């Protein structure tokens, strides 16, 4: 699942992951994400932090509540408090991994694969 309010960036992430044969569910904010999350089987979530309506930090807490073993990667590009801050907070709230925006796609894919196949060295 990709949660990102920026349509262009979300689209790009979707395309990139589709190429790796992942099936994708999209959401543009936290509320939409929760509804869709409940209606489908999700292995891993990539979520932006700064979003209108419900932000990524809330999403992380709520999704972990619904499904404690869900893997979450938080991504952020900045905002007044700086990306490091939000991402560290995200980590404290239970995100399994964090990434600065913009990041290399390969890096994201590496992380996703690491999280989904933990037994692989």
């Amino acid at each position: 699942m990709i949660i990102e309010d920026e349509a262009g960036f979300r689209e790009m992430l979707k395309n990139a992951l589709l190429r790796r044969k992942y099936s994708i569910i999209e959401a543009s904010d936290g509320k939409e994400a929760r509804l869709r999350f409940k209606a489908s089987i999700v292995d891993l979530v990539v979520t932006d932090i700064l979003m209108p309506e419900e932000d990524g930090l809330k999403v992380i807490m709520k999704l972990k509540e619904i499904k404690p073993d869900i893997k979450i990667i938080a991504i952020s590009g900045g905002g007044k408090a700086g990306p490091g801050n939000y991402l560290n907070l995200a980590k404290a709230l239970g995100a399994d991994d964090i990434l600065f925006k913009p990041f290399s796609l390969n890096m994201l894919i590496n992380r996703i694969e690491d999280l989904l196949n933990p037994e692989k060295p």
Partner: protein
Amino acid sequence: MEENYIDKYLFNYLFSSSNSMISVIDRNYRYVKINPTFCRMLNLTEESVVDRSVGDIWGDETFHNNIKNNIDLCFNGENVKFEAKFGIPARGIRFFEVTFIPLTGGGQEVMHIVAETTDISKIRLSQNAVNEMEEEFRRLETGIPIGLLRCKTDGTIIHYNNAFSKIIENYGSTDLHGMNLRDFYFEKSLLDIHIIQLGDKKVRTFGRVPLITMNNNQIFCRVSGFMVSDKNTGLPSFIDFAFEDSSREIMLENRLMQAKKLETIGSLAGGIAHDFNNILGSILGYSEMLLEEVGENQVASEMVARIIRAGTRARELTGQILTFSRQVEQEKISVNVSEILEEACSCTLSVLKPGITVRKNINNRDLKVFADPTQIFRVFMNLITNAIAAMEKTGGTLSIDLDSAEGEKLKKESGKNIVADKYAVVAIEDTGVGMEESVISRIFEPYFTTREIGKGTGLGLSVVYGIVHELEGEITVKSVKGKGSVFSVYIPVIEDYSAFGVRPSKEKYKILFIAGDCGESRILSEALKKSGFLVTTTANALDLIELPEDDLQKTDLIVFSDDQKEISSEILMRFILEKNINLPVVMIVDTDYDLSKEKLLYSGIIKHILFRPVSLREMITAIQISIQ
């Protein structure tokens, strides 16, 4: 008989009713006759005075100093008039006007003189008071910082004070009398309008009026006028003007406006930069996918690599704009300013063109501030590089000064927003080309540059501005076209730095920092140590190869700054792979780094690539992300 009667009556009347002390004195300086006022003034009876000498009554000293010679003159037949101060018991010192008139009786010889002594103390005292007031007024007129001027109704100058001379830069002390006030008005006709306006209403303030000084500079003064009319005719006789120099006021207003403008540009640019980062994310992401798609096609993959490089460069620029608009949070630790300044000096001054001399004056080596050292380093690097560039053609002297200053003093001097008690002040001064006023006022705006297109981004000073303000500091610039410029950076000093900054991280990560020659990397590795990491720094990547394997295995992470002379990143990575060192690597590269080398990323060794300039916060976050 009749006349004699009138004379005698008149004499007696005047003698006894006069407000003056009147006495008759004989040749032996003895009082023969005194009037009632004399008795009243000296509080003596007539009997106790008559037949006694003048010296007895007034004291011998007074008699010999002031009186005797005048009496002698009078006995020679002259009328004598003089003023004197006499001390009178119970009345203190009084001022008197004394007149001696010789009485000749029937013969030629003067037998007696009449002395008329009038107390003029009251007149004297009020005259003194008037003199003092006049003196006071003169002092006020001379000392007051307001220019005062009196002119005729046609503008001809009658009188002016020092301050007026100063305001119109009359340093050569030219006599302005007879000149016309109109000569100092930028708009000559404005004075006529002012005079007409004063005709209706006797007092008026005209607001800020542009004037022209003797040195042909334009200044602004708040001008007030007072029409003075003739008491008898009621017609205007002359006009008094007051001139208050409002240059400083205007300067402060301009600075405030400048700061507000920068603030506005900052939030606008920051917003744009933020959106751009998302767009760049898409561009870079698709480019990466495209790179995979084109596969073995050399031409196509080279093109895509160029897109990625351009995108990365754009990302660096948006990062700089975010720094200017202070939307990037900094990781702050206690930093010794002189150490960073020295590092910046050694990076910039090692290869200096001949013709430029450097004067370094570091007065205080203990000044500590709370900041990201890499950011301060950027500030110094930027200012020193600019100063050198300003002297590229002319040569000259580069002065680098570090000292501390009290906040209160700075506030008065700079008019800037000074809040802390003590500041570290770094001044970078050049004797290069200098700048015009119009350039100075815009120098911190992003994308404002005086260099030719393609040289410099126009972001440098705006980034400096953003960093300094993020530190609650200030930056000022003084410059004279053709003479040079001086940039002063003020950063609040922390007195008790043990309370801040050094924040031991919970996990003591061991980091091997391969720093190379770049000053920035060295500063970064020092900063990491202060942030609580266990850092081993080595300048040379070859050291890594010689490092005992045990030491390597104890390390948690390698930071590799890609500016090694002896060894390229690829060779290093191959070495790490061969030795089967299972360590995450964070790589620091320049933005023009060839990303086709990014194949290294696939190996999984490089967990993170950071582009210069790297802030401490970026570094720490990258380390935290990479060690998992």
